[in-house]
């Protein structure tokens, strides 16, 4: 039977390197996935993920178990990932989080849902779009990438996002809205092209 996180943490706090290694193996892929979503570059994500575990080890004795180990680990990983792209964020024009009428009038809403059908999990286009998700995500500004990754990969609630990103809940909601709109627009472009190609093939004799 697998040891739970807290017992591994307890052993690691006592100097058991194998216990800490087991925690690394348990969470390495998910930490890497979070880092990759934020920093975009696979090698940088690898480095950020490793550094997150090093920092966790350095502060292991301070961990009191008030939150879960994974929450603590992902918090550190997120901060490191955000720090590593801070330069990029500084160089970008900071976009407002408010929702304005123009944000709602882009058009094209519903195309994705139509293209993906009633049972999206069984849809071929969905699988193909999944391959484009990373490109679409990479095209977003850092703050939109980060909030989408935290929401979707870590599964944080509005409240948890507000606490993690030090934002008001309302700002979290509107930032998520903008992030999703941009992601959907990028995927719609791909879905639209696919639909046109398929139509052309179908009309050919």
């Amino acid at each position, binding site marked *: 039977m697998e040891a739970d996180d807290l017992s591994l943490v307890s052993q690691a706090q006592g100097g058991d390197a194998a216990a800490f*290694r087991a925690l*690394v193996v348990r969470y390495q892929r998910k930490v890497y996935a979070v880092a*990759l979503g934020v920093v975009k570059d696979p090698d940088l994500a690898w480095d950020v993920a490793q550094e997150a575990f090093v920092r966790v080890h350095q502060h292991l004795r301070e961990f009191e178990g008030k939150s879960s180990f994974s929450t603590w680990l992902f918090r550190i990983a997120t901060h490191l990932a955000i720090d590593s792209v801070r330069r990029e964020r500084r160089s970008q024009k900071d976009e407002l989080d408010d929702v304005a*009428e123009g944000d709602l009038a882009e058009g094209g809403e*519903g195309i*994705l849902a139509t293209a*993906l059908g009633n049972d999206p999990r069984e849809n071929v286009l969905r699988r193909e779009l999944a391959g484009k998700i990373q490109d679409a995500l990479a095209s977003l500004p850092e703050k939109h990438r980060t909030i989408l990754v935290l929401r979707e*990969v870590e599964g944080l609630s509005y409240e948890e996002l507000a606490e993690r990103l030090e934002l008001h809940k*309302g700002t979290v909601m509107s930032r998520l*809205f903008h992030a999703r709109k941009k992601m959907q627009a990028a995927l719609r472009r791909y879905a639209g092209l696919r639909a046109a190609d398929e139509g052309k093939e179908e009309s050919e004799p």
Partner: protein
Amino acid sequence: MTRDCIRFAPMIGAREGELSPSDAKALAAHLAGCETCRAMAADAAAIDGMVAEALLRKANTRDFSTFADEVMARVDRAERPGLLAWLRRHRAAAAAGLVPVLAALAVIVYVRLDGGPGPVAMLELSSEGEATTVLQTADGPVVLLQEDGGT
């Protein structure tokens, strides 16, 4: 497109329990009457979970066989700090170690300034411990004794 859309659009995609009951009820009523927001909600539902799916798939295609070993090596390196880190942590000891060196340098400068026009002997410095310096001059060795690291 109404002002209500601006209010309700950010609520689309909220999970159960994340909105207050009154907001959830108002959102449902708005969606029932707003085609644009319904389409937005349908898009959000259609791609729900795809970001996590895509990133985890990417992570699963990468070879992680060396990851944990690399982490453990970095942990080891972090626990064995270099000279700079040691100096930062032991500023007082580092400063005390510098005292005899600085004292010796001060004597050299003094001897050179005070030597006048005549030839000044070659000086050879050696140190015994942290607080003793032997100064070789043309007139013979001069031993500089210090107590408690003072000059």
